[in-house]
Each structure stands twice: as C-alpha cells, then as structure tokens.
C-alpha cells in the first residue's frame, strides 16, 4: 500500500510538470485542492490555519478577561453580590451540557477517521442538540435577569413593567414590519406547492432573517432607546454600588460566548449535511476536525466563564 501510494505520488509530480496536476488527484477524491500534492499536506495546512485562528480567538476573549480582572480587583463587593444573583444550578447544568457536547464533538472526529458515517451523523446531531439545550437554559437565565432589572450599564435597575410597557407598544412601522413575515411565509409555501423547491427555500431563509431582524429591533433597540436609566428594582436596590459593571461584563462575556455557540450550530448543520452526502473519508475529514476544534474552544471559554462569573465567594454585609 505504502509503495503503491508513493508511486502514485511520483506520477502525480510528473503530471505537475506538464501542467496537468489535477489528473493524479482523482484518486484522493474530489476535495484535494489542486495546489496541494497530498491529502496529508492539505490536512496539515488546514490544521495550522485553524490553530492560528484559535490563538486569535483566545487573545480576543482575553481582552474581556483582563477587563474582568481589573474591575473585580477594584470592586470586589459588587462582583461578589452580582455573582450571588446568578443561578449556580443553571450555570452548572450548562457546563455539563457543553462538556458533553465537547465529548460528542471529539467522538465525531474519531467516527469520521474510522469512516463510520452513520455514527458520525448521530454524534453531530447530539452536539447540535446540546448546543440548543445550552441556549435554552441561557434564555431562561437572561429572562430572569431582565425581570429583576439586572441589566448592563446604565439600564441596571430598570423595572420589568417598563420593559413590558415599551415592548408592547407597537408602533405602525413595527406592525408593517411584522406583517412581512406571514407574507413571505405564504409566498414560500406557494412556491413549494408549485414545485419550486429551491425558490421556496430561499424565501423561507429570507423569512427567518426577517423574523430575526424584526425581533432584534423590537426587543433590543426599542427597549434601550426609550428606557429611563438609573432606576431601581426591589432586587437592585439591595446591591452595592457598581454592581451594574459586573452585569455589563456578564452580558458581554456570556453574550459573545452564546454568539459563538450559535455560529457553532450553523457550522455543525453544514458539516452534518456534508457528512450525510458522503463527503468525508479517512483522507478527507479536516472540516470535521476543524469544526470540532472550534467547538472545543467554545467549551474552553465557558470552562473559565462559569467559575469566574457564577462562583464568586461572597458574604453579604450584615449577614454574618
């Protein structure tokens, strides 16, 4: 086998000399790029690039961790009290969910190395399921913080009834915006029934994007543009000064992390589709490998976020 492959490699180079480099590549499947000689070279290059990207990700997150370090050293009481308001159980559950998804991601790569396509698909679906479970828990956590007025920066202490009031008062522009959603949905369905599957798919995607934008604009822009800052709720009135800084960092750090989880879901769906299509084999699995590396990084960031945000030791003043 080794010799045969080496001979083949040799042939390949001869072809290269004549400017027909692609001929020899066929034996390795359609995914060996013409500028690489062998699958191994392509794999090593892709992996090196991935690690450079991961290093960048670590440095990018480190800026937030340094901000955390500075503010925690300045305002230890505010951080203790803020951390005390977070739900440890939910944080711990999410930690376990992400660790499990890291396991399934690692096993996915292994399954692809062994060309166990079916097993790999199941593991990818498990990873996606864990990612969604993580976001659902996060959604309930954020909802609870919003309810208690534990909002970032100057919006800290805004009572919930004000948020509800602002959210419910839909203006005419918002109504027109929302009306576009069912219209797109109906056209998409009509296209599907006419046998225009691809067109229906694009319209469905457009509808989803429309929902996202409409929801985002209403839910955040509208709230943050009209709220009266510097209020107090029953919960925030009890907290030390500058606890809002803790919650600014909490929302930015966990929010950016959640954004990575959402991107990860998209990546895994793409990889799952390619796996079902049969793109991968033992000489071509670097998209799976690199996606798993990305997913492990998302897990790594959470490994630090969980104890640093949720588990700060705190004895409230007057409770000793």
């Amino acid at each position, binding site marked *: *086998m080794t010799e045969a492959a080496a001979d083949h490699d040799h042939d390949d180079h001869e072809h290269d000399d004549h400017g027909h480099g692609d001929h020899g590549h066929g034996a390795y499947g359609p995914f060996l790029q013409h500028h690489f000689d062998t699958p191994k070279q392509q794999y090593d290059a892709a992996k090196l690039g991935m*690690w450079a990207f*991961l290093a960048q990700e670590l440095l990018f997150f480190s800026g937030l961790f340094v901000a955390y370090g500075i503010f925690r050293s300045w305002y230890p009481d505010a951080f203790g009290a803020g951390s005390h308001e977070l739900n*440890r159980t939910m944080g711990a559950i999410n930690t376990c969910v992400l660790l*499990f998804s*890291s*396991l399934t991601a690692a096993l996915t790569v292994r399954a692809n190395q062994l060309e166990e396509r079916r097993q790999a698909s199941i593991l990818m679906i498990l990873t996606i399921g864990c990612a969604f479970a993580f976001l659902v828990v996060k959604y309930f956590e954020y909802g609870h913080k919003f309810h208690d007025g534990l909002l970032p920066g100057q919006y800290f202490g805004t009572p919930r009834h004000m948020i509800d009031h602002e959210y419910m008062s839909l203006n005419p522009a918002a109504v027109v915006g929302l009306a576009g959603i069912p219209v797109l949905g109906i056209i998409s369905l009509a296209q599907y029934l006419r046998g225009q599957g691809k067109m229906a798919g694009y319209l469905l995607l457009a509808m989803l994007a429309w929902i996202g934008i409409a929801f985002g604009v209403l839910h955040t822009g509208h709230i943050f543009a009209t709220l009266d800052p510097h209020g107090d709720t029953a919960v925030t009135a009890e907290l030390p*000064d500058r606890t809002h800084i803790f919650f600014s960092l909490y929302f930015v750090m966990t929010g950016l992390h959640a954004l990575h989880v959402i991107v990860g879901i998209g990546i895994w769906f793409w990889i799952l589709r390619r796996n079902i299509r049969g793109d991968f084999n033992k000489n071509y699995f670097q998209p799976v490998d690199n996606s798993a590396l990305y997913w492990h990084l998302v897990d790594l960031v959470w490994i630090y976020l*969980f104890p640093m945000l949720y588990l700060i*030791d705190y004895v409230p003043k007057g409770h000793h």
Partner: protein
Amino acid sequence: MSDHDHDHDADDGQIHAHVSSAKLYWGIFFALIVFTILTVGIAGIHLGAANLAVAVIIASMKAALVCTFFMHLSHDNRFHAIIVVSTVMFIGVFFAYTMNDTGHRGAESGVDPQSGAHTYIPSGDIAPGSWERPAEQKTPEKHDDKAPEHH
C-alpha cells in the same frame, strides 16, 4: 513529522492522524465532570482572596485536559502546542502589565479629598483616566442606611 507514531509510513501522502479510543474520550469527559463538581463544591467554602486563584487553577486543569486530549495536542504537530503555549504567555503579559498599571494608577499623584479623584500635584488638575477610589470600602450611602435592617 506531525505523526511520530507512524514514522515508517509518514511520507505516503495519506493522513495518519492518531485515532484515540472512545474509552479515553469518555474518561476525559468524566474527569471534566469531576472537576466541575469540585469547583462548585469549593466555591461553597469561604476562601476569601484565594477563591479566584483556586477557581482559575481548576479551570486551567480542565482546559489542559480539553486541549491535550479532545483537541489532540498530545499526538499532534508540536508546532500547534507551541502556538497555544505562546498565546497563553502573551495573555499573561497582557494581564500582568494591565493589572500592574491599573492597580497603581495615580499612586504618585495627589488625591482630591472631596471626590477621591487623582490629581496632578503641581496644578491640582484632575488626572486623565482618574477614577473614584473604591478602596477603604467607601460603601454607598443607601447600603449603609439599610444595613441594620438585615439583622
């Protein structure tokens, strides 16, 4: 070069990345869960300033397990491990210099007794980037008022 396990056939152009056993991955997963339980348990003990240090040490042990086994650094091209280690070192430099700066900012300038802001000694002007002193636990008034009610 990258797969020293397979030096004998390293040059056939095929990928010979190490395939770890599923058992190893499950073992690492359970170790990570044990560390998670440990870090939650220790957070219940009042360690004061050591709280953050212990949390970071346990998190780093978990991170090392993920990097070494899940991310295959144990059997990977050494250069990838060098990338990770040097990244961590640069993060350390980032932390050390910034914390050293912010921890002592304005220490040699004057302090305005009214606002707690740092000032230039010669002119008395407020120094750029000056911040109110968090030290001496200048607890907020509203908190002081309410403190007795907690008893």
